[in-house]
C-alpha cells in the first residue's frame, strides 16, 4: 500500500473509496453514541420518546384545542402533530449533532487521519434508534385512536414509501450539516445559530399546521424546504392525508439533493484546513 501525499488544488474528489475502507468506523461511532447517549440519566432511553411526546401534548393543547388549527381529513390533532414531530425530531437531531460533530471531536480531527466525512455521517445515523422507539409510540397512538373512533387505521402500500421519506429527511440534514460543520470549524457563530435554525425550521415546515394552509401560488416555493415533502409524506402514508406525490415532492427531493451535493463539495474543499483551523 503506497500513500501518496500532495497538496490538493481546487475541488477535491469525493474519495469514496477511502470512506469505504473506514466503513467500520462509521458503525463504531454510531455504536459509541448509542452506548453513551443516555448514560447517567434517570429516564434513560425514555427521553427518546418523551421529547416528541411532550411537544405533541403541548401542541395539541395550544394549537389543537385553543387555536383550533384544522387538520387534514379531520385527523385527531395529537396524531396529526405527532406524526410530523417524528421525522422532524429525527431531522433536527441529525442536523444539530452532525453540525457539531467536527468541533465536538476536535481531538480526533487534530490528531489522527480518517475520512472526515465519517463524523457528520455517523452523527446523522445516530438518531435512527430514537426514531424507531418514538415510532412505536405512534403505533400505540394510532391503535388507541382507531379503537376510540375518529381515526381509521390501515396498513397499506403507502407504508413502503416511509423509508424514502426518512432518507429524504436524513439527506437534507446531512446536506445542511456538511455546510455548517465545515463553517463551524472556522466560525463558532454556528454554535449559536443552530438552536435558532432548528426552531425556525420547525415553523416553516408543516409540523403544527397542515401544508394546505399555504396558499396555492406559494406551494412550489414552500416545497423547496424538503421537510415539507417529508412531513406530507408521513401524513399521507400513515394517516391517509392527501397524497404528496407530485411536483411538490419532486421540488423537495431536488432541493435535498442539491443541498447534499453542494454540502459535499464544500466539505471536501474545506477538509484540508480542518486540522489547522479547528
Amino acid at each position, binding site marked *: *500500500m*503506497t*500513500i*501518496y*501525499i*500532495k*497538496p*490538493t488544488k481546487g475541488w477535491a474528489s469525493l474519495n469514496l473509496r477511502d470512506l469505504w475502507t*473506514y466503513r*467500520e*468506523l462509521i458503525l*463504531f461511532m454510531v*455504536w*459509541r453514541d448509542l*452506548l*453513551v447517549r443516555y*448514560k*447517567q440519566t434517570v429516564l434513560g432511553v425514555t427521553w427518546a420518546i418523551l421529547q416528541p411526546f411532550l411537544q405533541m401534548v403541548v401542541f395539541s393543547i395550544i394549537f389543537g384545542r385553543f387555536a383550533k388549527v384544522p387538520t387534514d381529513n379531520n385527523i385527531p390533532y395529537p396524531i396529526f402533530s405527532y406524526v410530523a414531530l417524528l421525522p422532524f425530531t429525527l431531522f433536527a437531531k441529525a442536523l444539530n449533532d452532525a453540525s457539531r460533530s467536527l468541533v465536538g*471531536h476536535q*481531538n*480526533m*480531527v*487534530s*490528531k*489522527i*487521519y*480518517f475520512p472526515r466525512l465519517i463524523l457528520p455521517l455517523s452523527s446523522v445515523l445516530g438518531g435512527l434508534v430514537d426514531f424507531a422507539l418514538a415510532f412505536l409510540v405512534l403505533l400505540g397512538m394510532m391503535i388507541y385512536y382507531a379503537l376510540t373512533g375518529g381515526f381509521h387505521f390501515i396498513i397499506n402500500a403507502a407504508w413502503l414509501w416511509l423509508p424514502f421519506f426518512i432518507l429524504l429527511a436524513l439527506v437534507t440534514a446531512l446536506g445542511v450539516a456538511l455546510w455548517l460543520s465545515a463553517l463551524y470549524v*472556522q466560525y463558532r457563530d454556528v454554535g449559536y445559530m443552530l438552536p435558532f435554525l432548528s426552531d425556525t425550521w420547525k415553523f416553516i415546515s408543516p409540523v403544527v399546521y397542515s401544508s394546505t394552509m399555504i396558499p396555492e401560488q406559494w406551494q412550489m416555493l414552500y416545497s423547496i424546504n424538503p421537510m415539507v415533502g417529508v412531513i406530507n409524506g408521513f401524513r399521507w402514508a400513515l394517516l391517509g392525508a392527501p397524497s404528496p406525490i407530485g411536483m411538490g415532492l419532486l421540488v423537495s427531493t431536488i432541493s435535498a439533493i442539491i443541498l447534499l451535493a453542494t454540502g459535499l463539495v464544500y466539505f471536501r474543499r474545506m477538509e*484540508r*484546513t480542518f*486540522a*489547522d*483551523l479547528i
Partner: protein
Amino acid sequence: MTAIIRVEHLSKLYRIGLAPKGYRTLSENITYAMGAPIRAIRRVKTPAPDAMDTIYALNDVSFDVEEGQVLGIIGRNGAGKSTLLKILSRITEPTEGEIWINGRVGSLLEVGTGFHPELTGRENIFLNGAILGMKRGEITSKFDEIVAFSEVEQFIDTPVKRYSSGMYLRLAFAVAAHLEPEILVVDEVLAVGDAEFQRKCLGKMSDVAQQGRTVLFVSHNMSAILRLTQESIVIQKGQLVKRAPSVEAVDFYLSAGHSSDGERTWSRDEISLDADPFRPVALRIRGPKGTVVETVRSTEPVVVEFEYELTAPVTGLRVGIYLNTGRGEAVFTTFDTDDPGMFERFTNRKPGRYVSRCIIPPDTLNSGRYSLNVNASSYRIRRYFAEEQALEFSVDATAAPGMQWPEPRPGVTRPRLEWKIESL
C-alpha cells in the same frame, strides 16, 4: 535498502491570522466583542496583505527514510517537527511538495484519541482500535495481548472515567502500541507516565525497530535520541539543516542554538501575536562582574536575567526559567514570584519594561552544557510566552571542589559540601 518514506520539497505555509488566539478574560472578551462589528467592516475594506500574515512552518524539506531505520527528529519547539509529523500522518495537507509512503503510518501522537470516559476499557479498546484504522478482526485477535500489556485486566469492564490517569494512559498506549503499522511515529509520549511505564514504552519501541519496522522518533531528550537512534535529522525554523549520525546531529543541534555569547534577544517579528501583552526582549547570563558571558565558572554566582515589556497591565504574572542539561534533563524550575512576599508585591504589574533576575549560587552546577527555557504565564489563566532552549551556556569547573583529580564527575550538581573526618 529501499526508501519507505520519500519526502520531496515539502513546504507548509500557515496563515498567522487564522491561528488560535488563546484565551481571554471575560472583560477582555466583552471589549473584544464590542469591537467586533468595527473590525469586521475594517477587514472587508482592507484585505490583509498576504506575505505579512504567513509563515513557513516547513520550507523545502526533502529526505528519505529507509525501511527498518529508526530516525531521530530533533529541533526546538516551533521548528516544524510537529507539522512534519502531522503531514506524514495525513492530518493536515502540505502547501507544496510530495510524499510517498509505503505502508501504514501509526503514531503515538494519538494516544487515547477518541477514548470516551463513559465507556468501559473493553469498549474503548474496540473504539480506539477502529479510530486508529484497525479492523474488528484484528482488534479481537489482539485483545488479550492489549489488555495484558496495559495491566488493567481487573478494570476492563469499568468505565474509563473511574481509572487513575496512569491506568488510562497505559490502556491508551497499549492500543496504539498494538496497531503494528509499518511506520511508527513517536512524539515525546515518553514524557508521561511513571518510570516503569516509560521503560515499557521504550522497550516496545525498540521491539518495533527490531522487527524491522521503521520508526520516526521525535524528542527533546538528547539522551533518548542517542540511545534509540543511529541517525537523526535536525530541523531549524522549518528547514532541514542537518542529517547525520545521531551523535553528530545532537552535537550540531546543541551548538547551533540561536543564542550566542550568553544572550538571546527577540526581535518584534519573532514574537507570536498570542503573547500580547507580554513581549520578551532579552535573556542573558551575566558573570560576577556583570558582563554578559557564555561560559561561567561553577565556583562563581551566575546571574540569569530576563528582560521583557508589558504593553498592558497583567495580573498574577510569573516569569520562570527552566534549567536543563544539554541533553534535555531537567535540573530545576524557578519563578520570579516564588517567594510569597514577592508574589504579594507583584500581583499586578503595570505596563512598562521589566527585568526579572535571579542568581544561581556558586557551587551549584557541575561542568557541562546547560540550556534555559523561559516561560511567562498567569497560573491557570493563560500562558503568554514560552520558549524552549532559549539560551545555552557552559559551566566550567575549574577550581571546583575535587579538581585535584582531573576526572569527570557524574551528576548535574557539584556542591561544595562540608566534610568532617573524625579519627575514632
